[in-house]
C-alpha cells in the first residue's frame, strides 16, 4: 500500500536517533521524544562532519601506504598493502574475492569521501545542478555502504588469529589500525552530517530562520 504524502508549510525534521518527526526550531532543536539534540544548520554548517571527514581522509593515506597483512612463510616475509592484496588475489585467479576486497576497501571509502565532500560543499555553496532528492539518495547510499568497508579489517583479524602455525604465520600490518581509524571517522562523519542542510538553502530563507531562532 502506498502512503499519502503529507504537505506541510512548517519545516519538519526527522530525528536521526528515534525517527520522530519534529519541528525545526533552528539551532536549539531538541527531539521531543528522545531529547537528543537535532543539530541544525544555521550556525553549525556541518563543522563536526567536516572535521571527522578530514580525519578519515588523513587516516586513509597511511592505510594505503603501509602493509595491511604480513605473511611469514618459513621465515620468508611477504607484506602486502590493500591494493597489493587485491592484485595478488586477482593474479591467483580468485576474481570474486579480489573484487569484494576492491569494492569494500577502495571503492566504498572513496565513494563515501566524494559523496560527503560534495554534499558538505554543496550545502555551504549551494548550486542547483543536482536535484535535492538525488542528493538525499546519495547520502542514503553513503550511509548504507559505509560499514561494508570493515570487511578487510575483519578478514585480517580472522586470518591473523587463525594462521599462527610454526611454519606459516600471518600478522596484521600497520595499515590495519589506520584503516580502522579511517572507517571509524567516516562512520562518524556520515552520522553527524545534517540531512536538513541539503534543502534548506533556498534564497531568502536565511533571514526568516534567523528571526525564528532568536
Amino acid at each position, binding site marked *: *500500500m*502506498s*502512503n*499519502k*504524502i*503529507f504537505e*506541510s508549510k*512548517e519545516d*519538519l525534521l*526527522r530525528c536521526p*536517533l*528515534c*525517527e*520522530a*518527526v*519534529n*519541528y525545526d526550531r533552528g539551532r536549539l532543536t531538541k527531539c*521531543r*521524544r*528522545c531529547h*537528543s539534540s537535532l543539530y541544525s544548520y544555521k550556525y553549525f554548517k556541518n563543522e563536526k562532519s567536516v572535521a571527522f571527514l578530514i580525519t578519515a581522509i588523513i587516516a586513509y593515506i597511511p592505510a594505503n601506504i603501509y602493509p595491511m597483512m604480513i605473511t611469514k612463510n618459513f621465515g620468508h616475509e611477504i607484506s602486502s598493502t590493500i591494493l597489493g592484496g587485491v592484485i595478488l*588475489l586477482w593474479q591467483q585467479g*580468485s576474481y*570474486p*574475492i579480489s573484487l*569484494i*576486497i576492491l569494492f569494500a576497501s577502495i571503492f566504498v571509502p572513496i565513494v563515501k569521501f566524494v559523496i560527503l565532500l560534495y554534499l558538505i560543499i554543496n550545502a555551504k555553496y549551494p548550486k542547483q545542478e543536482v536535484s535535492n*532528492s538525488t542528493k*538525499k*539518495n546519495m547520502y*542514503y547510499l553513503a550511509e548504507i555502504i559505509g*560499514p*561494508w568497508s*570493515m*570487511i578487510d*579489517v*575483519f*578478514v585480517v*583479524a*580472522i*586470518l*591473523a*588469529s*587463525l*594462521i*599462527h*602455525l*610454526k*611454519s*606459516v604465520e600471518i*600478522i*596484521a600490518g600497520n595499515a*590495519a*589500525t589506520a584503516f*580502522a*581509524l579511517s572507517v*571509524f571517522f567516516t*562512520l562518524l562523519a556520515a*552520522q553527524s552530517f545534517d*540531512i536538513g542542510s541539503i534543502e534548506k538553502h533556498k534564497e531568502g530563507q536565511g533571514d526568516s530562520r534567523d528571526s525564528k531562532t532568536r
Partner: protein
Amino acid sequence: MITDRELDKLIICKKCHKIHEVEQLEHGEIATCSYCGTTLYSCDKDSIKKAFALSLASMIFLILTNFFPLVQIDFLGSEQYVTIFKTMVTLSSEGFWFVALMVSVLIFISPIVIVMIHIMLFGLIYFKREKELARKLLIFLGYILPWHMSDIFLISILVALVKLIGFVQINIGIAFFSLVAFVIIDLYITRVMPMHTLWFNYQKVFEDE
C-alpha cells in the same frame, strides 16, 4: 502549529525524506513510500510477541557464537581454531589495540547489548511495566544500533575462508552456523521492528491509556 499528537501521526521516509501520514493498516499490510517505494512500516498484531520470542532465540545463538570455535584449520598436522574472543586477544597482544577495541565493540559488545536491550524492551512493552526504563532503553538502542556489524563479520569470515582454500584443510565450527542463525534472526527483528515501530508501540502501550 501542529500538535505533538499530530506529529506522532507523521513519518519521514528514511531514503527520500518525504513526509507521510501514518494510516491504520490491516494485519499483514505494508506501507511504502509513494515517492521512492521504500518500506515505511508494517502491521502485524503479534509483532511484539514474535519479536520477544525471536530475541530470546537469538540470545541462545549469540551465546553459542561467542563460546565455540568459528573455524578450525588443519595444516600439515598442526591444528588451529578461531573464536570471536581469540581474534580480539590476538590483535591486542600484537599491539593493534585500537583495531582490537573496534572489533570487540562491533562484533562482541554491541550484539550482546542489543540482544539484551531487545529482550528487556519487548518484555517491558509486552507486560506494560517500567515506562521510564523502556524509554531509556529505546534511546540507548538508537545510539548503539549503527555500531553493530555481525552481518559484515559473517561475510568477512567467508572471504577469509575462500582465501585459505587450497592451502589448508578447513572445518567449519558450531559458532559459524549459530552466527548465521543469529544474523538472520537479527535482520528479521530489525525488519519487523525498526526504530519508529518500536517507538509507536511504546507510545501505544504507555501513553495512550
